[in-house]
């Protein structure tokens, strides 16, 4: 990024380097939320609907994992993906894929834990009805997820917020490579280290604006969906 331009000028001129960073941030965080949804939603649903010994301990652990330190997850993924690590032959370190993996690990517990709570609350309402209709476990889970879909959007947004805002994991596994793995948060960290605090704070405002825009979009989709769903 040109050092002497302000963040506002960069935004107004749709600076290609800045746009690349914005798209990478969005792509990585959304992909991480997608992966985390595929893994986390079924985990949350299973915990909500089933009863087994140790279930309470599982819920406590899952809730605690929402607070996973990004830098620790980054380091663990780094050691896994490093050429000297067990998955080194995949050659994923310092690529956007590595960043998606690290963020997905951070986001999965958030989606699973919040989905568990939402589905369990709904389950209390639905239990007798679904039991009377003799619906099997897969049918129960899909009915609950479908009927709770608008509430579950909040869980996905919480996950997206976590992914878009974190810097500790992506800077370790992505390497903050210019034009390749540099995201909004790592760019902000870099400009801070260069002492260009106005540009850093300007980029911060751009990032917050993007997160607000994504949330507004999700809210709009939810409202429209609720209207059509009745």
């Amino acid at each position, binding site marked *: 990024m040109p*050092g002497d331009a302000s963040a506002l000028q960069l935004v107004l001129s749709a600076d290609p380097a800045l746009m690349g960073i914005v798209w990478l941030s969005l*792509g*990585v965080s*959304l*992909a*991480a939320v*997608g*992966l985390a*949804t*595929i893994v986390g*939603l079924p985990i949350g649903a299973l915990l909500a609907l089933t009863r087994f010994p140790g279930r309470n301990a599982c819920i406590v652990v899952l809730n605690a994992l929402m607070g996973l330190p990004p830098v620790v997850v980054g380091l663990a993924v780094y050691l896994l993906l*490093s*050429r*000297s*690590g067990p998955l*080194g032959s995949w*050659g994923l*370190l*310092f*690529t*956007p*894929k590595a960043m*998606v993996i690290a963020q997905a690990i951070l986001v999965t517990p958030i989606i699973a834990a919040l989905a568990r709570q939402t589905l369990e609350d709904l389950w209390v309402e639905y239990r007798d009805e679904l039991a009377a209709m003799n619906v099997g476990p897969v049918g129960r889970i*899909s009915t609950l*997820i*479908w009927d709770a*879909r608008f509430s579950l959007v909040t869980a996905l947004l919480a996950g997206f917020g976590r992914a878009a805002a974190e810097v500790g994991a992506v800077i370790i596994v992505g*390497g*903050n*490579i*210019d034009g*390749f793995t540099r995201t909004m948060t790592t760019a902000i960290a*870099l400009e*801070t*280290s*260069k*002492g*260009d*605090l106005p540009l850093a704070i300007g980029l911060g405002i751009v990032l917050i604006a993007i997160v607000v825009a994504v949330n507004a979009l999700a809210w709009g989709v939810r409202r429209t969906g609720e209207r059509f769903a009745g």
Partner: protein
Amino acid sequence: MHTRRTLIALAALAAFATATPALAQEKSIVVSSTTSTQDSGLFGHILPMFKAKTGIDVKVVSQGTGQALDTGRRGDADVVFVHAKSQEEKFVADGFGVKRSPVMYNDFVLIGPKNDPAGAKGKDIVAGLKAIKDKSAPFISRGDRSGTHSAELALWKTAGIDIAKDKGAWYKEIGQGMGAALNTASASNSYVLTDRGTWLSFKNRGDLDIVVEGDNKLFNQYGVILVSPEKHKHVKKEFGQAFIDWLISAEGQKAITDYKINGQQLFFANATAPGA
């Protein structure tokens, strides 16, 4: 089932977002280097020239020298480009690198508050550090095993000060990069050792200025090493070697010499200097 369709759409999104960057990966190498080369803007100046000539994309991961060498040791970079000669020679001797080639030098400067509470201004670096220690003037150390940190520790030793033993509350190790150290010094009006390039491009100077410079003990040599393809089979040795050959060629050396901030030259090419 709607749920399944949603999940499939999410999976497709995830696959799309992760698959697209793979296209850009073809002719490229990963270089682990130091914050000083990246933050000073040197790479932004020379890498486009190298790419125009060879078509090779150079992806720079900038870390402290210790970490950058470690990245090479683990096989996560094709080339390391750092500044701590003894650590570089050990890296090659241990079989992790093929050969160390000197590239250029820049110099360290001692930064401090303009009112200079330790009275270090105009002294050489040894007397300057002694003055800081005698007055217990606040000093920020990188404390992160970087090249600059190693150089700082060596300078305390040259000044006859055992910093591990003699440090007091005035000496703070922050364990972070050069920029963070400068930001901390700027916020607390402390002395700090930095490379000149990072200082010249650093914007949040506050009340700080150069206190000691030009002492030849402050010269800072950079070397470049190809990570051993014998240790790590996947190292892109042709592309990596092409980058090294270009850096030490007349063309690469001129590109380094030509890089200036506010008319000031930052790096002095010396690939052919004996013993560099």
